[in-house]
């Protein structure tokens, strides 16, 4: 081995030692999938109403809007940043849509207003974090109050209601049989974000920045630009979620989507994204969203009150995160 003349021609390093398939089988996503199937079966046994297609279709509303944001949030957290203002962005987008509606705008304009407001909010966060180098957790806690505060100033105790019929399609429409428009948007978003994160150069840069932003910069990556784009994406997805939610509820109150940010982060972390950045996957987030939806729906069918539901969600999060660590600790004994 300690031959002094390096043998350059014969040494061969294999590309991979483990096939992608066997890696997938041992992954976090696999574990989550088993949990999801388990919950599905439990629900089916516990309630006779669970397996009804229309009930299941309704249940998807428990997660679709949050999951859309969770995809963008996953990228942001993988890159080492976070956006806690997403619920407030929804409130501001919804308020903007409401204002446009009172001015007499029809559905297409309302959609553009929602998307534009979301992008603007994302750009505001992005400039503060990427351009001025402020910590994202502080910036977005600030903008969380700021964005929602504007909604409260505009609306006070009142609410916008009476959205045009065409606008209802996004939150209440069906594409085919029990497949809702929101579910289709969710699936499309999952596909697009999967491509971006796992199949594009941009996704590779996100991982590099999350693992070591300094070394990424020393590798010629425009770290600030990538982070700015990620905040824009999160703003945009919040805008889309705001359109769906406003359309589904048919009204805008300043308290709309309160607490969304924590549920979105919960989905992301449950999906196996490291809160410290650097690792995670879109399939994980998709399955985590399904788990969230199934648990909420199942508990709802059993008439479990909302407070208890949030306790169970919290325990589930801690439990699923702790499981692999407990497992290794037990094996080491």
């Amino acid at each position: 081995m300690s031959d002094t003349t390096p043998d350059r021609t014969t040494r061969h390093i294999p590309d991979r030692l483990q096939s992608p398939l066997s890696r997938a089988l041992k992954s976090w996503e696999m574990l989550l999938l088993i949990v999801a199937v388990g919950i599905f079966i439990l629900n089916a046994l516990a309630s006779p109403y669970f397996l009804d297609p229309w009930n299941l279709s309704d249940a998807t509303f428990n997660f679709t809007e949050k999951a859309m944001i969770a995809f963008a949030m996953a990228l942001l957290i993988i890159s080492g940043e976070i956006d806690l203002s997403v619920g407030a962005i929804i409130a501001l987008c919804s308020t903007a849509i409401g204002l446009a509606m009172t001015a007499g705008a029809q559905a297409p304009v309302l959609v553009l207003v929602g998307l534009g407001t979301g992008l603007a909010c994302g750009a505001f966060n992005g400039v503060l974090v990427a351009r001025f180098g402020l910590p994202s957790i502080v910036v977005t806690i600030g903008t969380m109050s700021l964005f929602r505060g504007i909604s409260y100033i505009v609306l006070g105790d009142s609410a916008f209601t009476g959205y045009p019929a065409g606008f209802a399609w996004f939150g209440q429409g069906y594409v085919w049989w029990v497949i809702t428009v929101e579910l289709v948007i969710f699936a499309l978003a999952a596909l697009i974000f999967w491509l971006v994160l796992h199949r594009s150069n941009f996704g590779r840069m996100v991982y590099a920045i999350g693992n070591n932003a300094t070394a990424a910069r020393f590798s010629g990556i425009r770290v600030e630009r990538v982070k700015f784009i990620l905040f824009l994406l999160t703003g945009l997805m919040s805008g889309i979620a705001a359109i769906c939610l406003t359309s589904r509820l048919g009204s805008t109150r300043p308290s709309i989507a309160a607490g969304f940010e924590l549920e979105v982060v919960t989905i992301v972390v449950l999906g196996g994204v490291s809160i410290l950045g650097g690792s995670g996957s879109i399939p994980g987030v998709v399955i985590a969203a399904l788990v969230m939806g199934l648990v909420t729906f199942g508990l709802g069918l059993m008439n479990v009150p909302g407070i208890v539901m949030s306790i169970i969600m919290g325990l589930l999060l801690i439990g699923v995160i702790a499981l692999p660590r407990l497992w290794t600790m037990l094996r080491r004994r």
Partner: protein
Amino acid sequence: MLAETDAPVLSLRGIVKTFPGVRALDGVRLDLYPGQVTALIGENGAGKSTIVKTLTGIYQPDEGQIIVDGVETRFPTAQAAGDAGVTAIHQETVLFDEMTVAENIFIGHAPRGRFGLIDRAEMTRRARDILTSIGADLNPSVKLLDLGIASKHLVAIARALSIDARVVIMDEPTAALSHKEIAELYELVEKLKRQGKAILFISHKFDEIFRIADRWTVFRDGQFVGEGVMAGTREAELVRLMVGRNVDQIYPKRPARIGKPALTVAGYCHPTEFDGISFTLHEGEILGFYGLVGAGRSEVMQALFGITQPSKGAVRIGEDVRVIRSTAQAVRAGIVYVPEDRGRQGAVKGLPIFQNVTLPSLKDTSRNGFLRLAEEFALTRTYTQRLDLRAASLDQDVALLSGGNQQKVVIAKWLATRPRVIILDEPTKGIDIGSKAAVHDFMSELAAEGLAVIMVSSEIPEILGMSDRVIVMREGRIAAEFEGDEMTPENLVRAAVGIEGEAA
């Protein structure tokens, strides 16, 4: 004045300290006498920092004795060293910005009042006394973050005095000070001497050493090579002791065919780090940059690579004038940089080898912005094979590789971009001998192929063995340039420490 018969306060005998792969201290000795300043002299990596850490209880020696007042002792903790009266003022002394001057001075040994609570009034009063005694006009109640570097040094010195130290270690105390502040520091050292304290003074600057020291000790490569009294010692003698090793390692330097200018830097300036840097680098040339730690070499290189922006100056690459404001622009212009700090700036740990290598080349391996893994593996294979990388698979996390192999991954990453200028910052620092040879070998091969290479190194044999030409930097400026026969260890060290005239 120098009482030769004085017994040393503190002596080290036969101290050995090894780290994985390195013998940092190899049986060194050191004597510190009361009321005298002993200068510790040596190149970067001679073992000076290790000896300071041994003296202050941060490192435990593997072998050897620490003798205080003729009694052998141990410093198992920093606290123990402090109790024995040893205190250090570091290059970057650990002080607490959010605490007041008085709190910093008395941290760990504050005067106690009733119920064992800190007696603030007494603490402030004593802090003021100590500060007055060293002629420092500081308010003890001011928070440290409001003070400048020089004042922080004074606080560190006051802290040293507050524990009634008998041995004061000053590790490059003047590195960050202005001329006026340095003069004040000298006065303070005289004051400490009069109080009978033994002072260990570590500095790279010969003028300081001759100005202030009574004795000297020289280390080289972790070994003791000589000691004596300052009076009657000539600079040339110290320089020879410092570098006096044989430059007998074999470097695979190939005769270079030096071509057209590849990179011309004109008047590069930075507000704090460097000033008036101008040089030309040619195709096929290896240009060495020598200097002491802190001479500004890495800072210049990082500005060329777009990490920091120069305040003034221009770069020409080949024929084109370029403005480099980001690393992305530098890479596009064909300048790449292999950093010294591999762990933080080099490899992206957590990502597999192939993803590290292709990170700056994704444009070439992808199609329409989408990854093509087969292309990535092929590119990685080409360059890692040339560098003789040792790894289990190309999909392995770089964090699992040895330092030398991580360095190869970083170099492969840059070669894959087919650059015109490659800057290697301490390319073989802390890597094993085998990888070192591979890196050297490869460097000559690259130069022979016409790549322009800048090598920043603090190792004289490496600089002399690999470079066609050497630029020496001192305090942010180019101090000298050597070529051919002028490239001698003595000339480099002279220029680096700032000794003018007097031929070697």
